[in-house]
């Protein structure tokens, strides 16, 4: 068999390449069915799962209401050291890009934290972006939270562009990823 293939190598190659080309043609994507951006899932390329959570002032914020703006969701707790370490960088980029439309939603995993500790944490660091309280852990569950902090970068269309698990994220990383959200 091996010798037969080697004897007719040119014919074998042409047949294989032609069969591959035919397979490529028949397996081409139907663009109307290919878009993952219409399905909601906590993964790059999918629509970000929607949620509504309240701030410490009682204001309800719904993610889908922010469609049209780039959004960064940061899941955190007050006892998590990397969360604390990356908050100043988040505040810097919020100050620089909020007027362009960037929204940062800092979602406290309150089911594994205490609201009072979270509020003290926010005051201590002087954070100005919205702090949301995930009291029953539903958002952590929706986004398959595996480790703290976790940051989800969402573009204007509401599609997840990247999920960064762990931290602290450097300011340079935040700036480059946020810039791509505006494109």
């Amino acid at each position, binding site marked *: 068999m091996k010798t037969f293939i080697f004897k007719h190598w040119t014919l074998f190659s042409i047949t294989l390449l032609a069969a*591959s080309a035919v397979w490529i043609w028949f397996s081409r994507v139907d663009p109307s069915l290919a878009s993952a951006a219409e399905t909601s899932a906590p993964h790059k390329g999918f629509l970000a799962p929607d949620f509504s959570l309240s701030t410490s002032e009682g204001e309800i914020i719904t993610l889908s209401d922010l469609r049209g703006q780039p959004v960064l969701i940061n899941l955190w707790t007050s006892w998590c050291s990397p969360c604390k370490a990356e908050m100043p960088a988040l505040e810097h980029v919020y100050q620089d890009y909020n007027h362009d439309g960037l929204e940062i939603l800092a979602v406290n995993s309150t089911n594994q934290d205490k609201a009072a500790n979270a509020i003290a944490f926010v005051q201590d660091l002087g954070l100005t972006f919205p702090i949301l309280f995930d009291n029953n852990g539903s958002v952590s569950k929706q986004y398959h939270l595996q480790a703290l902090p976790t940051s989800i970068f969402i573009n204007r269309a509401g599609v997840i562009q990247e999920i960064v698990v762990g931290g602290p994220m450097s300011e340079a990383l935040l700036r480059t990823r946020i810039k791509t959200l505006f494109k």
Partner: protein
Amino acid sequence: MLPILHIGPLAIQVPGLVLLLGVWLGLSLTERFAPRYGMESKIIYNLVIISILAGVVGARLFYVVRFPDAFLSKPASIISINPSLLDLWGGVLTATMIALIYGRRMGLSFWPTLNALTPAMAVFSVALALAQLSSGSHYGMPTNLPWGIELWGAQRHPTQIYELIVAIIILFILWPGRETFKSASPGVYFLSFLGLSSGAYIFLEAFRGDSPFLPGGIRIAQLIALIILAVSLWGINQLELR
């Protein structure tokens, strides 16, 4: 899917760990069998390590050049250990250039070197498929087939498992301890790996749900794999049969 492994207070990123293990195992295999291809194990080991280190530095430098503004406020971030601040193609380019320079300085022959590195590439392909399985990336198209897996809101082709099985089969076929390629011309072993992998990619890519495609729906990765397959077949013809 197991993106994170919790060991006590540690949260370990499984895909990264699997890729590191793949490099280590692949390099060990290459070191062991390098003499079979007329290469010195230590030189091959150094070639890989130097290329990886150069690739990481190059990837960071290319990233800084691409996004200089991001580093203006905190220039110290240039040396941050964050793996997200890397430019993949910049890293590949730098690693290739350094490998060529090192190879030239050490007087390495082109095809025997690639032959010696082939086991490492085959093992790394297995590790890559495992890393994709653990992270849930490279996911499949929705399917009603009974072996479909529930992932990202749909029953999907388990493309990561398809890729894993094919990578293991290719590793088995090309296992360096075999006699099959012992008498083959230099380079045929490597080109066989390239041909088998690109052929498998053309076939399996059709089941993926996240492939970038051209207008008209032709998948870009399949076209690139077709070109690589053609080059491999032509190369084998040139090296072995002429």
